[in-house]
């Protein structure tokens, strides 16, 4: 119940350049934002807070809302935003 809607299975992480939705990121893992696939208004809100392509996120507490670290700040993100953020794992 605590985990957000993670649609990609953990096994698919073996693929070389692995793309992953934010809810699938486990605590302590770091990913780079590839795209934010939300409505323009939501993209604007997220962009204003630094969630743009190339931003580095560290998952601190998965769940809904999750807590991620971005530019040294902790931000809480609800499921509606989380599942719209696609990441690339290092």
């Amino acid at each position, binding site marked *: 119940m*605590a985990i957000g809607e993670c649609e990609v299975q953990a096994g698919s992480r073996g693929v070389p350049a692995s793309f992953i939705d934010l809810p699938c990121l486990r605590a302590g893992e770091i990913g780079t934002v590839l795209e*934010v696939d939300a409505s*323009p*208004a*939501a*993209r*604007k*809100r*997220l*962009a*204003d*807070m*630094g969630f*743009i*392509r*190339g*931003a580095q996120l560290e998952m*601190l*507490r998965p*769940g*809904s*809302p999750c*807590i991620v*670290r*971005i*530019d*040294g*700040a*902790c*931000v*809480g*993100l*609800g*499921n*509606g*935003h*989380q599942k719209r953020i696609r990441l690339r794992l290092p």
Partner: protein
Amino acid sequence: MRSEERVLASPRVKSVAVVGNPNTGKTTLFNALTGFRQRVGNYPGVTVESKVGWLRDAGETGAIEVIDLPGTYSLSARSADEAVVLDTLLGHTDALERPDLIVVVVDASHPRRNLFLLTQILELGRPVIVALNMMDVARGRGIHWDAAALARRLGVPVVPVVATRREGIEALTKTILTAEHAAPRVPGPALPPAVDAELAALEEWKAGDAEPPDTRPVRAQWLQALLDPAGYHEQRLAVRWGADVTQRLGAARARLEAAGHGVPEIEAVARYAWIEQLLRDVVTCPHRPRRSKSEGADRVLTHPVAGLLIFAGLMLLMFQSLYEWAAPLADAIDRAVALSGAAVANWVPPGTLRSLLVDGALAGVGAVLVFLPQIMLLFLFLGILEDCGYLSRAALLVDRFMNVAGLSGKSVIPLLTSFGCAVPGILATRTIENARDRVLTMLIAPLMSCSARLPVYVLLVGAFVPERTLLGGWLHVQATVLTVMYLIGVIVAIPVAWVLKRTLLRGETLPFLMELPAYRWPTPRTVLYRVYEQGKEFCLRAGTIVFAVTVVIWALGYYPRPASVTPLPAAGQDGAVASGEAELAAAARAPAAGPTADGTNLEGSYLGRMGRWLEPVVRPLGWDWRIATATIASLPARELVVATLGTLFHMGGGDGGEPVELKERLQRAVRADGRPVFTLPVALSVMVFFSLCCQCAATLAAIQRETHSWRWPALTFGYMTALAYVGALVTYQVASRLMA
């Protein structure tokens, strides 16, 4: 010191605006700059308040106004609070002159995100000073700044400060006084030429308008309107120029998309790239961020299970101590009001004036003041939790549960506040971004059991709920009933919100997005000052309206006066209440008797007549006309029901003439047919009614002020009264059958 001389010769800065992201210590800095010499200003039209203070060490340059603006991440407005920032900076409000200088507060421990807002503000072409705040936190995290290099690159003064310890405040004040008040020289981040072209076209489109040039939208406004579809700026421009604006912006967006520019993020991408360049060699960050103590604390405090338990425990502790600590203070205020009433009665001869002063004015003041201890304590608790950074975690923890009712975690702070008083709770909804969610939160806030219900519960529980324990001493019946009364509102609020969300306030709830500031020790001065301010605001806001309505209700209960006012000898015999009909007849002949012979004429008054007129309506609830009268009298504020019951039942006085507690008088009161007025089902029905009704003029006035419409307060009053009636009906009918 060439510049200083010039300033002394001709002071040009008259007002300074303080802007920054939320949680950058902006208010602490504002307090330090002004030394608490400030007032709350109000913007006409938008009900957002900003604080205005005066620079503490303005020296010989005369008074300099300092404006504290709401925290924001961007000039594109997301909430009612944020909408004010750009308007003020551009001088588009009637309340304030355009500030001559903008102090941008930057949290030194989060370099990039904070500079995003700075780059937007630099483009306004106004003089700017950067205050690099929280230098101590940054140092602790291994982040080092070269402030001089930053100032050189930006072309504006940069002053490092630690506002909580007043470090650097003097230097900042001096910089404000002596700065070269010119626009920043360094060009900001370059947007792609296609965006610039669109902005230029939009500017040109409206450049020819005959309106005064200083209200013409600047490029920054067009940019935010272009990038935020249907956002605040687009709406504002559309109000001014009609659907043309929407059409043009839509077409421009489509052209940009077609050219491969993702519309909202294009600005952020350009700005962050520029910031990256700007910060090279200016800031050095540790390669891997250190895990802070704050994150360690969050492992427990935001844990899905442990975190919730801690939150529940904290709330329990808060409400427990609230009632324990506030009760003696409230009693003291009650006594003080009673003493002043006695003093007035000594000086003023019996009659209308004395009654107005004692039963109208003083009762009104008392009704407001009695809540002050609880409300101040609640604000103190919430202020400490907010200042140390916990409240945003609380919002995060309960977000999932609020989603069920169609609300987001952001509603939790207004709703918690409403347990003290719905008025500040309604004001606290300003931080909610979505207008519909904000109204929804306001509509259910009055269902939270506020401190005004407590006196009603305490009186009736004490008088009619048996003092017994069940389950082998584990369950205290009186305490259980009290707890149930508190829970009713919360339980009812969930389906109410659910229904409203699917009918009148349909729309998507914005997903949760909130920064969780690092935990820190609360600053006592800031917290205490806020408690003082909120207490004052409550007294003025709630006070004036409660006072006014109390006087109106007093008049309704006082008039019409019978022909001769002759105090009867103490008619305190039990028989006097025997018949309602007889009483009415007696009241028509002579004024009411009793301890306050000069004051009360309730039975024959307009108010009493309304009560009798309402009797058929309230009979199914098990009420008699006196309870109906008391309920009408409590329209301005719920707790007034206690005072009115006191007046209405004063005739059932003790045999020996000694004062009898209201509790006992209620227990003894009988109806025309000899049955008691109050039984346990009746008491429960009255309590349920008061837990659900919206008998609070101040709350309705607050909703009206915030929504600019009488529709929402009318709806609130209507639905809550209907709920209260049905609740009381069901309670009485079920309870009386169960008891029989």
